[in-house]
């Protein structure tokens, strides 16, 4: 059995993306994976094997809170929302990411 590559994402960026998507409003796991795919124009695909452990991890760290609610289609689903701590964490990660991206860009553009 070969293990599929879990994610093409940089280590740690998945947590940041999840926080970012959830910050837009309460959303269930399937919705998160769809959103990431849509917004990235199919460039990023999140494997369920990474997504759900990450969601549970963020919930346990009290960055996300979860609630069972009905979807538009009338089914019960687990909706995730950002906590205050999660919002703070998102800010930290966003600024870290900005710095990292700038730094990488500088290096890559150097001639």
């Amino acid at each position: 059995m070969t293990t599929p590559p879990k994610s093409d994402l940089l280590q740690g960026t998945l947590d940041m993306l999840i926080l970012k998507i959830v910050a837009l409003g309460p959303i269930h796991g399937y919705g998160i994976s769809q959103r990431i795919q849509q917004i990235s124009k199919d460039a990023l695909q999140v494997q369920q094997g990474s997504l759900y452990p990450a969601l549970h991890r963020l919930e346990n760290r009290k960055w996300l809170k979860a609630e069972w609610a009905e979807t538009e289609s009338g089914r019960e689903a687990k909706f995730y929302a950002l906590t205050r701590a999660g919002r703070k964490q998102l800010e930290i990660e966003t600024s870290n990411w900005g710095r990292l991206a700038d730094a990488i860009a500088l290096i890559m553009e150097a001639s």
Partner: protein
Amino acid sequence: MFRKRRSEQRLDSELRFHVEQQIRDYIAQGMNPEEARRRVGVEFGGVEQIKEECRDQRPSQWIESLTRDFRYALRQLRRSPGFLLAVLATLGLCIGVNTAVYSVVDTLLLRPLPYPEPERLGNVAVRFDAKGREGIITGANGLMAEIVRDHASLIDSAPFVGASGANFAVQGRAEYIQQQRVSTGYFRILGIAPLIGREFSSDEDRAGGPAAVILSHDFWRRFFQEDPGVIGRAITLRGEPHTIVGIMPRGFRTDSPADIWTPLRPSTTGEGNGINYAIVARLRPGATWAAADGQLAALGGPVLAKLGFGSSQPRLAIVPLKFGQTYWIRERLFLLWGAVGLVLLIGCVNVAGLLLARSGGRMREIGTRLALGGSRGAIVRQFLTESVLLALGGGLLGVAIGYVALEGLKRLTEQSFSNWRYIDLDGRVLAGALVMSLLTSVLFGIAPAIQASRIDVRSVLSDAGSRGVAGGARRWMRQVLVLSEIALSIVLLVGAGLLIRTVAAIENLAPGFDPANVMTAQVSLADARYPTAERVDRLFTATLARIAQIPGVEAAAAALTLPYDRAMNSGFILKDGPGAGQEGISDFVYVTPGFFATLRIPLIQGRTFSAADSAKARKVAVVNRAFEKRYLRDQQTLGRHLDDLEIVGVVGDVRQQSGWGDTEGPMVYHPTVYFPVAQSSDGTLPLMHTWFSPSWIVRARGDRGALIAGIQRAVESFDPQLPIAGFRSIDQARRGAVGSQRMLATLLAIFAALALVLAAVGIYGLIAHLVTERAREMGIRMALGATLQQAMSQVAAPGVRLAACGVVLGGAIAFAITRVLAHFLWGVSARDPFTFIMAGAVLLGVAAAASILPALRLARLDPAQTLRHE
């Protein structure tokens, strides 16, 4: 429980929602339902695996999985009782002996002494050069003690002696107890004040001062029921009233097993003439070890020059008390510690091999679990859990075995080490054992676990049935493990063999007398009722006459000390002849006239003693060959005088236990002067009896019990108040004299036997595994015409080959390191070929047996059955 089920349901529905939503989306995109379901299934992968990972994110998760793992591990272990038994026995035995030995090492060498500020306590000692190695004796004579007391300003010091037997009269009967003599200041220096009363005054610590005694707490409880009113009362000790001045607190102990303490009354003559004291010291505030040591070195020069150290450059010094109390046993303890460490190592290797073999047999189980979605982490954890369980079980068993082993160790060594009776297994040792056990099995539990989690699921599962090949790497690793086991065992076997040969060599030394059928009975005459030579002589004459009447008795005598025992040594001056005025040191032994005849010590020239050598007659002495060789250089001996004794005879040498300064070996011929007990001087007799308890020596045939009863009656009928301290045959005395060598040899032999058993289990396991693996192949071969012998030798050969390699490797290691044993050996070289060959032969024999035994299973193989399975 309820919560758990609910959270499981939630996790399940969360994931199911995802799957269903995805399927619905695919259908909406135009896929047919069948196709959509299949595609989602592929994308999603193992649902159980995802669930497992989600569960792992929960903080309380580890407790849940731990209990689950433990339950599973227990079930797994119960399913292979043979493996369980082998691992538990290995761990239990290894940890047991290690715990026992570590308890001893910890108590004697590692733990601080039970006194305040123990790191500032020391012993005054003499350091000297003993043939290239540094020798130390923590002894002093009276003059040294006096100089140290009066001039070593950086230390507070007090001389003392070890405990010796004494008679204590209580309510009309006599008890034999242990009395230790200590100088004033002894308790102050140790830092422990009496519970009640005071310690000895300097007035009491002087010859002729008031007789005082301090009781141990135990003694106080035993004889006075802890009555505090006993202070100031008198007890009868050695036939003399002593006033109780103090009681020591419970648990107080010195390095001797003392019941009571009396003042030492140190002197520079008599016992103080020889190195018979020890000095305990405490650094005064502000003083450093180096400064105190330097001061002692400067003070000691003149007095040491006179002590017959020759060219060995003696130097007075101070050593830490802990070291001073244990220096003579340190090396032996470290050796034992090393030996049990080797046993532990072999045990670890054994457990590792067993775990490895087991993981090999479980490849299919692991493969199945992986295929069903078990994570690799979970499998490693599972293996670890099993290891921890094994370790805990082995550790508990080890503590139990350690307890028994320690009791055995104490019993085995009672005679040589009175201090060991205080040793107990304690919490620290227990913790140490458990840690040791955990480390061992976890360390070796991990390797197979990691290896196991890397297996290729497909190949294991597709490999039909139990025929799974264990893999070359695994077998190679096991072979290395067994090889090292055998090599380590050889090292222990050689070590034990060398020590056994040493004991044999010592015991085979010609004793210089006839030791067969000789019984001895010891008595303490440090008793106010026997203050003079005349009284002592009368006691021996009367009792010997009665003993001679006992049926079976051929001859009887009495002497201050026995062959093999350490004898009293004292200085003397040659009075006449060539070398007149020369000083020397010799053993001195008082004897009754029948002594030489009873022990059958040959007379070489002159005569021995007779009843005519009475107190009123000319004072005479008989010397041995060693004395003649050392001091009289084979010139005219008879008629010469040493001090006021005239030498009238020369006798053969008898073996003595070596004392300080002896470098020839454990058993030596000391220069010895024998003199008639009737001619002992009244001044020195009580001192001799303070140090030595004389013995009756009886050569008799017939029943031992009747003889002992007869001697008891003979003594009682003369003096009912005189308790006999103990009976032992001269053979027992000899065994006591080689006690420390014998103990070391016995223990090492036990450890070597343990190592041998472990190695045998290792080989057996390896070959048994090989037989299982190759049963099919062998079955086919036998079906095709191979004989059972051929098949068996095919499977058993690797074991024997491995053993041969191990023997060679171990032999090489032993050859390189037995030098550390060199100074425990005597009469045998550290590279004694006989020992090496024997060790190799024993191991090869055991290895062959351990290899052939499992190979016998091939005989039960039915070739037809094997073929059908194909």
